[in-house]
């Protein structure tokens, strides 16, 4: 029974990710990964990809494009989301981040996937100058069961992935976006 459930779990997860992956654009940015390999298939190594649901990307260069101490800037294409245009929320695909985790062999008891995102800059309202202050603003994001993470203007709709066999993920909380340093863990 355990084996069967594990197989079903893996199947459902794979189907969800396959559906999402159709929307993906490989952005080429390399994530740091550490921990155990969670794949049983050497042909399908564990990996992660982020993309905008709209498919939009934008060039980013580290070190503001400069060579620093002999280290050249890195250039990458990263997902490009637009939250508001002329003060109004954009169409959902423009502000939806799609996260694809692949090559996962879900253990029999299920797996909790947690996404935490942080702004690269600290909160200028708290630190004033925006220069050299710690990055404190974290925003947990809504994680739809389909793996799409969507921001809503002003409201942080925290929808978690609670992924285990036989249980569909559902929204379980809505609240204000926190800039207090809390990170939201999906469960």
């Amino acid at each position: 029974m355990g084996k069967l459930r594990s197989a079903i779990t893996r199947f459902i997860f794979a189907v969800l990710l396959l559906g999402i992956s159709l929307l993906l654009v490989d952005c080429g940015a390399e994530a740091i990964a550490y921990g155990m390999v969670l794949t049983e298939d050497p042909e399908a190594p564990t990996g992660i990809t982020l993309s905008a649901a709209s498919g939009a990307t934008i060039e980013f260069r580290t070190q503001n494009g400069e060579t620093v101490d002999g280290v050249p800037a890195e250039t990458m294409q990263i997902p490009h989301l637009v939250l508001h245009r002329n003060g109004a929320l954009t169409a959902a695909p423009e502000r939806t981040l799609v996260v694809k985790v692949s090559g996962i062999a879900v253990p029999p008891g299920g797996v909790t996937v947690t996404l935490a995102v942080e702004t690269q800059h600290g909160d200028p309202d708290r630190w004033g100058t925006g220069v050299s202050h710690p990055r404190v603003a974290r925003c947990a994001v809504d994680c739809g069961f389909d793996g799409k993470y969507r921001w809503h203007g002003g409201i942080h709709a925290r929808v978690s992935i609670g992924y285990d066999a036989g249980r569909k993920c559902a929204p379980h909380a809505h609240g204000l976006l926190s800039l207090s340093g809390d990170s939201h863990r999906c469960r």
Partner: protein
Amino acid sequence: MLPTPTDYFHYQVTLTAAGDVVPRLVFEQEYAFLMEDQVVVTLSQVQEMTNGAAPDELVLYYYDMISYQNRVAEAVHQLSRAEVPAYVQGQLAPRMAEAFRVQSDVWGFPWYEEWTSYRGGVDTERLSVTLHDGKTWYHSAAPAGGDSRISLNASDNIGSASYASLTERLMSSYQHELFHNIQRNIGLHYSGNGDVSGKDLAWQFFAEGTAVLASTVGEFDAEFAGGPGESYYVLNANKFIGGDGFYGKLNKRYPEMDAYSPAVYWRFLYERCGGMQVVREALTTLYSGEVVDIQTSTDVVANLSLVMDRALAGASCPFTTYRESLNAFARALYALHVEGGRCVSLGQPGLCGFYDPNHKYNGPTINQLTYTGTPLIYNVAEQPYPAGIPSSFGIDYVEIELNQAADAQALTLDIYGIPGAAAVFDVQVWQLVVDGGERLLPIGDTVTLTANSDGRLIHTFPASSNRAAQRLAVIITRVDAQETLDPVGAYTLEVCSE
């Protein structure tokens, strides 16, 4: 309610098996994605040489996790994050759209179909503005000040320049960078090249000088505001003019001079020639390549008078040659010292030189001499370093205090260079009354000295006029382009009685 932040984002994804505490797998990445806000404004229909040549939209890209702030003296004024969207959409965007209309239609710069932004994709043919922190790549490199893409620093002042508000600072930069687009528009049309500064950036005298001017014309109140601090223009103008013992850049070779401080010459032309027509003529002449190919030549000095002669001939100025404009410019700078020498309205006729309602300009440093009744000789041995006028188009100012011995004498002023040397000088003299020990009151207008058959510039002031004058201001301008042949520019000034 706190607004959702817009920024570059780091993410971390963890996968934790049921019952585990420690994640089995963690993914994380810095600058993994960008989420921003945008404001899109439809631009006015403006002059264009072909249908559709002008950009139709202005797009502002911004994110709110950087500081939108302005420093004035010791105070820092910062918008809260919640204020940023309304500020960008309600204040900045309308002013930027209006500036586009004014630069295009009021200043008279029609758009050509060859214009393109430096940006790619959807931005290629539209005007776009990014607001950044000066440190983080955002749509392109984030410059310390501005960039002609148009990329503006919302977080920091531009060096030591000071503006009364964030809007004034950003609009000043925007006017400047927008004008680079106007320049590129002309360059692409006439020569197919959008490199407005030319080979080795040698032609920044035109590109940056006129872009700084654009800020003063578009944002006059911001650039010339009263109160503490100096705007970017005033800061640079005073670097050029000098004052308080500092000689500024009046005798700096143009190839070695920074690109921004000569903007004061362009401001002078704008004021004296009644608007931007003279600038349009100059840029069109330069970028047409009919006088000089700026993509292959770096010789600004040799070509400056050729370009400007043609530009001034096509404009409505009180002078028709570069040489004449240079002399008028030198006189206007000296006028900053004299009573009534600062205009109280734009284009005011009479003795005044620059429109300067809040006294933001310094007066140039003057070399002081005294005539005591015996012949006075002022040559390279007496002149401060560097003696003479070593650079083409350089300017020296000398004041000669006339003591009572001069009252009953006719005085002859004789100025000459080294025979056979390449340097050529023009000289103007202003007779002044010193009122209350401080105020300099001019007696009439300047006298322009004319060369005799030996090339010496000689003028005799009759005794009757010297009874009124207490001081002579001598304005010496080097007007040749031969600074490499004559890098000293030696001259001698003599004063003697008849």
